[in-house]
């Protein structure tokens, strides 16, 4: 017998997006948040560098510039009306966070401090602009904490360490979800009027990644299984500065504060590729440049990494070369970037103040995900039909404001702006709707069966081995550079892994805290998402933003100025959805 709960609004995921939605929904309707982690453990807490908003606290800035940077950064695949909302609302959202208590760093006159970030420019001078609002290098941590604190203040109901396994669909209407309580293994049916999926990213399908172990894309994978589509899955961002071999992120804020890339010959190589923005070019470009350096044998000692150099005296040297009057010292860096300096010290044994830090690109952010409209309502197909009562926001969703490549800091903006819009939309909807009846006796059957199938499987394949093979293969074949042949191989390997997934070896047959089963179930999600990612990447025969095809190195606006919408119903099906272009026609992307 499953436990039964009823809420007007239900939010799955307690990251920035989920908490923001819960906060706003709970102002008028009965709201609950379900999360497989304690809310403060969500990966939003790992976000470091900042959240952008054209506050103009330090130098002149306009939200229109922010919008253009976002669109250009996204290689013109962004839906421009959504980007306008993002950048205009960003200002209020950041102020709102400050009012909620977020301890931003301050300028000497007491305003929110801002710093540079990749791809953020003054559209007139084309120079980098200080737009990223920050709280040291733990901005995401402060956002997550502040939102959780305000949810406590608002008395939002939390179901911590409950994992969603399935959503309850009736035709085109979502009536809630089924979740398993990890501490007991029992199933709970959550019946709701409006449901939001804010389950975050799925970077764990790659080996070198900045993503948490828990980021396995449960939300999007569940929708795929319920025959709903995902959007732009081929666009995945590889962040240029991951800690060598581990993938732990060293925020772009380092380069915002003046750090640069150095190759094996000691050159600041970004100068050759992007003469204006140099090291502050968008992430997709930097990652590709690093690979090119490595490919041409200019990695450090000819190996597969380069240096990120933020020794103060070197930064000052480059400031001087760039004509920037600013000068910094070690103390300044220690207060502005304390965490990432510590990461280098702890995990690499390298002190960034005295030595350059070895880095390599790391799988970081999903631009694609669950297709939504500008109110975070989930779309059922390429022509804009809605799934009633279902919402999505955050990294799990694709509005699409990030297009083919997200600009640094724009994800946190996305969370708060569209999380809030989703929360308000849910409350509006729930106020006027009534509970759609569900069959309490049977809705949880599918979830229980699928978990029990894993729990009782007596095969020979360890889930961890399958996961590892998937990750290594994805790094190689569905990474920064892709080829048609490689992607076809990737699909074959994934099919093979999916077959092996049916023959699992599971040690733990218990109910309580059975992480053996939950990890295996999550692997199932990753396999499904990897499949649609590779399939969409194979389908898109062009290079754009985070998606680079060696066999199609150019952008092809004629054919592919479109979002991909992918279904996995027995077999993969891909359709196109045109990009909404308002003010900015695509141009060549140069910095």
């Amino acid at each position: 017998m499953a436990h039964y709960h009823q809420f007007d609004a239900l939010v799955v995921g307690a990251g920035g997006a989920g908490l923001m939605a819960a906060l706003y929904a709970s102002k008028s309707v009965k709201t609950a948040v379900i999360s497989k982690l304690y809310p403060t453990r969500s990966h939003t807490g790992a976000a470091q560098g900042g959240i952008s908003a054209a506050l103009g606290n330090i130098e002149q800035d306009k939200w229109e510039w922010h919008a253009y940077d976002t669109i250009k950064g996204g290689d013109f695949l962004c839906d421009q009306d959504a980007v306008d909302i993002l950048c205009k609302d960003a200002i209020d959202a950041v102020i709102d966070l400050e009012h909620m208590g977020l301890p931003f760093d301050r300028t000497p006159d007491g305003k929110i401090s801002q710093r540079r970030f990749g791809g953020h420019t003054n559209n007139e001078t084309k120079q980098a602009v200080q737009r990223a609002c920050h709280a040291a290098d733990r901005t995401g941590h402060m956002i997550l904490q502040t939102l959780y604190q305000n949810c406590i203040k608002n008395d939002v109901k939390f179901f911590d360490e409950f994992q969603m396994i399935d959503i309850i669909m009736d035709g085109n209407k979502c009536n809630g979800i089924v979740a398993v309580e990890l501490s007991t293994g029992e199933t709970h049916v959550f019946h709701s009027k409006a449901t939001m999926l804010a389950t975050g990213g799925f970077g764990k399908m790659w080996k070198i990644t900045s993503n948490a172990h828990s980021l396995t894309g449960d939300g999007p994978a569940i929708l795929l299984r319920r025959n709903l589509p995902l959007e732009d899955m081929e666009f995945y961002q590889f962040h240029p500065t991951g800690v060598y071999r581990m993938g732990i992120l060293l925020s772009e804020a380092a380069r915002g504060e003046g750090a640069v890339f150095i190759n094996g010959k000691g050159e600041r190589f970004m100068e050759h590729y992007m003469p204006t923005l140099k090291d502050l070019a968008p992430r997709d470009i930097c990652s590709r440049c690093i690979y090119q350096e490595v490919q041409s044998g200019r990695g450090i000692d000819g190996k597969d990494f380069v240096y990120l150099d933020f020794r103060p005296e070197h930064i000052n040297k480059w400031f001087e070369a760039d004509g920037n009057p600013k000068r910094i010292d070690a103390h300044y860096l220690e207060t502005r970037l304390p965490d990432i300096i510590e990461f280098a010290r702890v995990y690499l044994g390298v002190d960034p103040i005295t030595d350059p830090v070895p880095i390599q690109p790391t799988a970081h952010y999903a631009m694609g995900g669950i297709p939504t409209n500008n109110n975070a309502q989930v779309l059922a197909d390429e022509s804009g039909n809605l799934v009633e009562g279902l919402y999505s926001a955050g990294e799990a969703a694709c509005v699409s404001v990030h297009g083919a490549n997200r600009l640094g800091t724009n994800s946190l903006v996305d969370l708060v702006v569209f999380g809030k819009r989703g929360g308000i939309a849910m409350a509006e909807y729930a106020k006027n709707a009534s509970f759609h009846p569900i069959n309490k006796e049977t809705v949880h059957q599918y979830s229980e069966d699928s978990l029990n199938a894993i729990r009782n499987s007596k095969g020979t394949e360890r889930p961890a081995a399958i996961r590892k093979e998937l990750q290594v293969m994805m790094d190689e074949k569905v990474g920064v550079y892709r080829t048609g042949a490689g992607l076809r191989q990737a699909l074959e390997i994934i099919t093979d892994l999916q077959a092996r997934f049916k023959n699992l070896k599971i040690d733990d047959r218990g109910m309580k805290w059975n992480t053996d089963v939950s990890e295996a179930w999550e692997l199932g999600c990753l396999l499904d998402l990897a499949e649609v990612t590779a399939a969409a990447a194979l389908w898109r025969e062009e290079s754009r933003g985070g998606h680079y095809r060696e066999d199609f190195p150019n952008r092809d606006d004629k054919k592919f100025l479109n979002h991909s919408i992918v279904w996995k119903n027995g077999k993969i099906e891909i359709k196109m959805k045109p990009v909404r272009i308002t003010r900015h026609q695509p141009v060549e992307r140069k910095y």
Partner: protein
Amino acid sequence: MKLHLKIKRFNPEHDKKPWWGEYDLDVEPGDRILDALHEVKWTLDGTLALRRSCAHGVCGSDAMRINGRNRLACKCLIKDEIKNGQIVIEPILGMRVLKDMIVDMDPFFAHYRSIMPFLVNDTPLPANGRERLQSPEDRQRFDDSTKCILCACCTTSCPSFWARGEYIGPAAIVQAHRFIFDSRDQAAQERLEILSDVDGVWRCRTAFNCTESCPRDIKVTKTIGEVKEALRTGVIA
């Protein structure tokens, strides 16, 4: 490198008492302890249960006793902890063990919630619709306590907390400090009153275990001392 891992195991579904699981692994010296635990879980015994997420010391999931002191498994490297080829892992102390490394965190979060962990400011917002102003010095004042990730390393290393689980614990005091010393907040009085209860801040016996165990290098005992000082003098400076 060879590693002998000794893990204190407990599965409520069939164990009456905790027992030691012993595992021999081949590891890289620069690996995290978390990697070693995953190696056990993923290749030797899938029943091993632990919480983890970020794997780089920012989410606060994997507090445990490593060689007898509270650490995050993802923030300790094997080469720094290994002694005579061995590392000993136990769950954090003073909380009910649910399974292996997983303890019941509910009382911990209940203490956290009890100190009103949210900004209270009922004055009207700035008329220009912008941020409240705060000087960099005022912001710096509570910087240390904003780093807390609620991992519970401190609270579960505190002898006063072991002695009495009702003691509100260093983590909750650090969180209270974060608001009491925020110049924008107005509920310092209420928080200080909550903290002046029998099981509040005066239960702290200045043992310093908390400071030694904090993975975020927060000066926990100093933070607590500042709260005590505010309570003693009535001045929040």
